[in-house]
Every structure is written in structure tokens, then in C-alpha cells.
């Protein structure tokens, strides 16, 4: 690499075009890293035949031995969904999804009910090991409890007992329905109603599994909780449902990771995440999204169509941090309903798209309570032929007096074939609120590149450094374990421990 570049520079000395070729070559090197998680696990799965009608919803519910109220919820949602149209307002172009082509249930076959982690299929343990997620507690980093979701079901939840000693409930969604039906019944659909939007409504009808956590009053969860989602089976849609409740004064930091094998078909992922932060509670939700993005020609990849929303009551705080690098299509707007007075919402996002990826992502901050405040920091990086859009709503309602919002959306373009778009919606209805939004779009700064090079740093590393610096405000919001993964994903080196 170095040699080749030297020749380029040598042939026309310091000519401008050579330099541009140089940096574009380096950008190519950086952005063409292979997807590392594309393997398929050979495991026997128990799957529904493709197709979707009301009987599928009923069978799904039966399979999970769900109570009647939950079946009713699903049916209500399914009937509603039939009347809805797939939204097309996002800056995304993809063929109409054939909802009949996917299977709505797929789970690794298990012989009997699991008594302990030792009984989890070794193939699955191995799969998660390959992904860098150890399900064996003694090997885990201290301080992270994992719920592993494989295709449609949760296969293991670690540290469950230890957490239970403090009254923290952490288990798969299906378990929660059986074990804590009152909590689930009370909060399911309380933030994202069954009729909310096309994809959320579909999820409400056919969700398979997901994670559930409840933090009791005044408890600070001693470890990070995390869910690791893996799509494995072909032609399967994944519809998980996550419900997190932090009771008054509770605190939890929650992490979510996801990967999928490389397949030529597009796969659908339509999840719903609901967060409930009761008075003075604080939920920090971090995502590193690395679903298979499709190949360099834009074939395959996950359609990631996700509804995430949190409701913050009095003095509560909800922080969303996301690093979005995967998926062929991303349609995702983690949002905050700032219902309680003095509640706080935060959204920190890095979205990087490459090749033919398309992302339309952002947030909604709905200010309802008095003196509510929100912060939005969004960093978009587009490369290849990708399209990367920020779309965000800041709504200050009339009664939300004294509200504050600050939004900053910056886009960086690496290459002249890609697009970076910014669509902020700002709605203000009272005089005592202050809303500020700033956005900028530019290509990587040549002056900065040259400065790095003059200090001996190669152009590839210089780009990494600068992109990393560009994202720093977001990356520093991530818990340590995730920050490392995020830095690797971005092909970057995170600032070291020095300084």
C-alpha cells in the first residue's frame, strides 16, 4: 500500500489530483472491511412455514402458551395492521417487502426446558463465543448480564439470580409473560401503542421474544444489562420486543448488540423497544447495530425497521446512544416522550453507511412536561454509494414551558457518490422555551489530513483519527465494553488511555 502510494506521489509530485486519489484510495481501504459476523450456525430449527395470516398469530401465541389478554393484544394489532400502509416518507428506496415470504417463527430445537446454562446447546454457546459474547458467566467480564436472543427466541440469560437478589428482574420477554404477567400487562404498549405505526403494529402482532427488565424503586442496577440479537435462519423475520421499566429512582444501563449471517436475500427485522422511566429514574440505552449490511453490490442485508421509544416521568432521564453501522436499510428513530416535569431526553448517534446502505435515522423529542430538556447529537458518515439521512423532530408543546433543546447534526462525506441529508422538524408552541438546531455537511478536511501526514501518520490512519474525532462526542457516551466494539466497527482507533 505505502509503496504504491509513494509511486503515485512520485509521479506527479504534489499534484492535487494525486492527493485526492490518495485519500479516496485510503477511504476505500477503510470502508471496504469485510463483515466479520457473516457465518451461519448449523443448528436444527423449529420454524413456521412462510406466510402471515391471523392463524399464524394464533399459533405463535399458542406455541408460547400465552394468556388470553396477550393473544387479544396480538389479534387487535394484526387486524389493525391489515388496514395500514407501509410508510414511504423516509429517504429510502427499497422494493416492496413481501410479508408472505418470511417465516414468523424460528427457534433452535431444544429437548426440554433448560435448567441451567450448561444445558444450552453447545453450538449456540460456540456461536456466541465467535461473536465475542460469552454466555458462561465465569468467563464474562464482570458487570454485564446478557440475554441472548437467537432468531425468534431468547436462548440464555446470564446473572439472573444475582440480579434477583436486588429485586431486579431480567429475563426473556416470554419468561416475563409467564412469570411477571402483571408488569408486562401494565406496561406493554404503554409507550408504543399497538396502533403506533406500520412496523410497530406488525411487531405487536407477531413479536416472538426479546428482553424484559424491571428495576425496583431506588435500585441502581449494579451491572450493565445487555441483549445480544442474532438472526441465523434464512427467510426469517425477526420481531423482538423489549420492555424496560425503571421504577422511581431506579437506574439501569442497557446495551444492545446485533449481527446476522451474510445471505443474499434481504431479511426483515422489525423490533419494538419500550422504556418506562418512572419518577426520578434514569435509563441509559446503548445500541451497537451491526446487522449484515449486504455485499458491496448492495445484494442482501437486513431491513432494520425499528420503533424505539421511552417515556420519562417527573425528573426522569432517558439517554439513547446508538452506533449504526450495519443493515441494508435502517429506519429508526429512538424517541423520548418527556411527560414529567423536569424530565430529560438525550440522543447520541453515529450512523455510518457504505456501499449501497441506506439509513434514515434520528429521534423525536416530545416535550410535554414543564422545564424538560433534550439534547441531540448526531454524526453521519457516508461512504461508497450510500445514502445517510438524519431525520428528527423536536416538539415543544404549549404547556411545556421552560423547555430547552439543543441539536447538533453533522455529516461527513467520504467520496462523491454518496449522499448526506438532514431533515430536522422543529415545532415550538410557547414563549419560554429555547430551541437551537445546528447542522453542517462537509467532506473530510484536507488541512487536517495534511497535518497528520506531516507528523508521519499514514493517510489511512489519519482518516481514522479524524473520523474518530468527529464521532467522539457520541462514542464517549457508550459504556466501555461497547466503546471498544464501536471503535472496531467504525474501523477506527479510539483515543487511548493516555490523556
Amino acid at each position, binding site marked *: 500500500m505505502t509503496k504504491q502510494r509513494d509511486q503515485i506521489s512520485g509521479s506527479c509530485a504534489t499534484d492535487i489530483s494525486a492527493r485526492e486519489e490518495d485519500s479516496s484510495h485510503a477511504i476505500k481501504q477503510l470502508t471496504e472491511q469485510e463483515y466479520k459476523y457473516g457465518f451461519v450456525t448449523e443448528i436444527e430449527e423449529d420454524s413456521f412455514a412462510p406466510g402471515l395470516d391471523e392463524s399464524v398469530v394464533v399459533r405463535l401465541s399458542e406455541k408460547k402458551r400465552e394468556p388470553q389478554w396477550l393473544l387479544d393484544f396480538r389479534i387487535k394489532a394484526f387486524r389493525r395492521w391489515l388496514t395500514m400502509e407501509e410508510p414511504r*416518507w423516509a*429517504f429510502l428506496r427499497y422494493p416492496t417487502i413481501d410479508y408472505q415470504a418470511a417465516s414468523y417463527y424460528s427457534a433452535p430445537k431444544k429437548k426440554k426446558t433448560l435448567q441451567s446454562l450448561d444445558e444450552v446447546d453447545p453450538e449456540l454457546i460456540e456461536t456466541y463465543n465467535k461473536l465475542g459474547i460469552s454466555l458462561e458467566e465465569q468467563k464474562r467480564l464482570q458487570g454485564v448480564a446478557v440475554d441472548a436472543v437467537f432468531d425468534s427466541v431468547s436462548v440464555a440469560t446470564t446473572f439472573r439470580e444475582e440480579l434477583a437478589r436486588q429485586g431486579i428482574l431480567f429475563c426473556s420477554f416470554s419468561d416475563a409473560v409467564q412469570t411477571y404477567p402483571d408488569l408486562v400487562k401494565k406496561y406493554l404498549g404503554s409507550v408504543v401503542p399497538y396502533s403506533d405505526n406500520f412496523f410497530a403494529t406488525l411487531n405487536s402482532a407477531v413479536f416472538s421474544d426479546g428482553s424484559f427488565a424491571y428495576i425496583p424503586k431506588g435500585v441502581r442496577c449494579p451491572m450493565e444489562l445487555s441483549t445480544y440479537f442474532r438472526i441465523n435462519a434464512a427467510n426469517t423475520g425477526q420481531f423482538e420486543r423489549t420492555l424496560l421499566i425503571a421504577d422511581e429512582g431506579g437506574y439501569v444501563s442497557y446495551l444492545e448488540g446485533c449481527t446476522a449471517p451474510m445471505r443474499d436475500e434481504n431479511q426483515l427485522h422489525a423490533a419494538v423497544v419500550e422504556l418506562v422511566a418512572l419518577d426520578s429514574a434514569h435509563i441509559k440505552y446503548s445500541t451497537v447495530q451491526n446487522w449484515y449490511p449486504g455485499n458491496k453490490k448492495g445484494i442482501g442485508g437486513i431491513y432494520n425497521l425499528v420503533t424505539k421509544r421511552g417515556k420519562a416521568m417527573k425528573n426522569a432521564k432517558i439517554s439513547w446512544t446508538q452506533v449504526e453501522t450495519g443493515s441494508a436499510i435502517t429506519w429508526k428513530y429512538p424517541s423520548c416522550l418527556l411527560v414529567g416535569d423536569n424530565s430529560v431526553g438525550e440522543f447520541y448517534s453515529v450512523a455510518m453507511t457504505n456501499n449501497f446502505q441506506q439509513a434514515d435515522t434520528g429521534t423525536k423529542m416530545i416535550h410535554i412536561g414543564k422545564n424538560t430538556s433534550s439534547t441531540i447529537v448526531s454524526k453521519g458518515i457516508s461512504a461508497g454509494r450510500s445514502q445517510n439521512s438524519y431525520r428528527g423532530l423536536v416538539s415543544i408543546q*404549549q404547556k411545556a*414551558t421552560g423547555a430547552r433543546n439543543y441539536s447538533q447534526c453533522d*455529516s461527513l*462525506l*467520504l*467520496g*462523491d*457518490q*454518496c*449522499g*448526506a*441529508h*438532514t*431533515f*430536522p*422538524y*422543529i*415545532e*415550538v*408552541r*410557547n*414563549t*419560554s*422555551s*429555547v*430551541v*437551537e*438546531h*445546528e*447542522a*453542517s*455537511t*462537509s*467532506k473530510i478536511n484536507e488541512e487536517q489530513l495534511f497535518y497528520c501526514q506531516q507528523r508521519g501518520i499514514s493517510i489511512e490512519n489519519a482518516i481514522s483519527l479524524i473520523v474518530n474525532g468527529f464521532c467522539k462526542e457520541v462514542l464517549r457516551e457508550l459504556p466501555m465494553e461497547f466503546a471498544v466494539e464501536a471503535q472496531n466497527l467504525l474501523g477506527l482507533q479510539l483515543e487511548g488511555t493516555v490523556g
Partner: protein
Amino acid sequence: MDSQAHYLQQFANAAHARSAEPSWLRARREAALADFQRLGFPSQKLEDWRYTNVREISETPFVLTTPKTVGSLSSASREALQDPSFDRGPRIVFVNGIFSAELSALDSSPKGLRVESLCAAPQRDTERLIEENLGQHLADNLSSFAALNTALFQDGVFVHLARGLVLEHPIQILHLLDTTLSDGESACFSRNLYLLEPDSHATIVETVLNFGDTRFLCNAITEIVVSRGASLKHVVLQRGNATSLHVSATQVRQDAASRFESISILLGGKLARSDLRSLLNAERAECKMRGLYAACQHQLVDQHTFVSHEKPLCTSEGYYKGILADRAHGVFNGRVIVQPHAQKTSSLQSNKNLLLSDGAEIDSKPELIIHADDVKCAHGSTTGSLSEDSLFYLRSRGLSEDEAKNLLTRAFAAEITALLPSEHLRHRTDAWLTEYFAEHFLSDGNSNKKPIGVTS
């Protein structure tokens, strides 16, 4: 009768007025009418109309205005005509959308300048120019209002500047919309075409004034071509009232190294929607759009801007400020597109809003859509109320709260009004604003009713 059927009828009623028109124009009108029949009025499901409901327009059976004698003008309208800024340079006046030769002063036009009624022009030597340009610069998605306008326009202004002509005085265009002259709820459709040949320069000042308290719809479409090296300063001063409905759109096409500068003051109206679009069609074109929109009571002002960078090395700048009081609703949408290969584009947009009452609403949506990488684009939007610190400072210097508010609000506006090309226009606008917002600051009876001098 639904709105489509109603306008079909209006079209039929005006058949005799069109009988003298050339066949190409009649064909365009018919095609446009068919478009309107197909589209209907825009619904809020359309992103461009998301915050603006036009039901009041679509549900009112407006009747096209008819020519009136000048003698019947209201005293307020007459007063407006006394404005000294109309004394110099060519002046063209329309009453309820219809050209008034009597009130216009076009004799003094310098050589190479044509300022005339668009509908009078096609029969003469300019017909070819009009045929080549009329309706040819409109973007497809300018909504059904453009289609309706093409079908129904009654008259408008045709401006043509010959190559290299540099105008000393602004061209004054005055629209008097006076419902005391009309019978019931009426509508006018005006159509304007400004063509600037290479290296010419002009300032065009359009003043649009509403009088009377009957519902009145004014729909105006303006197409502007600024050729290579030419420059146009386009000033729009529009003062609506509680019964005025305005939907206007201006489409500019800019050639290489041309300059277009728009300064607009949009003051009130039951509904005032303004679309300003520029297509930067060749290298090194420059576009500056700046304006103020303000509304109180239950009024709505909606300012949309759109700049499309089609070629490299162009620059654009947008700066809009809004003042909203009572239960008024303001909408700002500023869109910038940088097309693929439009490298070295520079674009800056800023939107600032001042809310004076808790029931007022602003919906601001600056957008950047960028398909080229070597660009410097940015936008910002801020919304808030008057700074408490500034208010306190002024009060500590002896001003009453209302005086302080008045002063600060006008200072907020002054950043835009200061851009107006003459002292007289600045004063006129400032007086409008003072009058318009008078109730908000000077209503407590003990305040000094005299306007406070603002620096400009």
C-alpha cells in the same frame, strides 16, 4: 360543488377573455386545468403542505375578479398610491389583479427595458419570448396552485431587460387588493415573467397590499430568468389582513455567474404562503434569500425556500426571521439540494424565530440534501422569546416593559429590514411592523404611543 368543479366553471366563465389569446397559450391553459382537475388542492399529507391547511381556500367558492374603475378605489388604497417610492422609475399598478393603465407610469422606461402587462404583450413582438418562457421554468412539484394559476391567470407583469442594461431606479410593482371594490368573496390570479438578459441589472420592488374585510384570494406565480452575468435584486413587501389569503410562488433560474437576491417582508394574512425557489443552473451563480415573516391573531405565514445547486462553484445563502404573536402560526421550510457533481458548493441557511405569546406556534424545517462531497453546507434554526437579560437591561435604563419589548422586537426585525434598498422602504416597513404589533406592546394605555426610534 367541489373545488375542482367550481374552478372548471370559473374557467368556462372566463372563456370570452381568452378568445383573443394565441393558440399555444390556450393549449397550455387547458392542459394546466386538466392537471388541476387531477391534483385538486394540496392536502397536509403532502410533505410541502404538512403544516398548512388550505381548506379555507378549497372550500370557498371564490369568483374571479373583474376590472374596476379607479374612481371606486377605497381611500386607504388611494393613500397607498401616494407613497413617494412610486415617484421614480417605472411603476406598474394592478387593482385586484387587473392592470390599471391609469395608475401606472410606464412612459419613463429607459431604452432596452420593457415593463408591461403580460396579457397585453403577447399580441406584440414579445410574444415569442413569452411563449418560450411562460410556465417553462416551473418545477413539476410546485403544487396544484401553479396549475390553477396557469389555467386562470388574468394578468401580471412582463419585465424584460436587454443585454447589459443597468437600471438606475427600481421597477415598482404595486398590487392593490381591495375588497371594497369586489362583489363578495373573490380571487385573482396573477402571472409574472421577468427576463434579464446577460449582464443586465435591476431592482424590482413588489408591494402587495390588502384592504377591506371580505375574504380575498390572491394567487401569484412568478418566473424569473437571470442570464449569465446578470443580477436581480427582488424585493417583496406584502401586507395581508385578517381576511386575505395569499399563495404565491416564485421560480428563479440562474445562469453562470448570475446573482439573485431576494428580500421579502411577509406581514400577516389569514393565510400567506410563499414559495421561493432558485435553480442554480450554471457555475458560479450566487443566490441570497433573506426575509422576515410575522403574524399575530389567528393568522398563518408560511415561507418555503428551495435552492437547487445543479452545477459546481455556486453559493447560496438563506436567512429568515419570524415573529409570531397571539395564536398565529409560522412555518419555515428551507431546503437546499446539492446535486451530484455540483462540487465546491457553499450553502448557509439560518432561521430565527421569536415567539411573543404562548399560543403562537412555529414549525421550522431547514433541510439539506447533499449528493456531492466537496461541499460546505450548514444550517441553523433557533426559536425563543425575547431575552430576559436584554429586557431587564432596558428596563433598568428606564424603559417600560412594553417599550423594551417593542424595541427589542423591532431590533430583531431590523436585521432584515435594514437590507431593504432605500431609506424610505425601511421606514415604511418599520411603520407597518409598529402598527401591526401595536396591540402587543402599547395596549396598556399608559405607554408612550410614539414609536421608538430603531437604528437601521
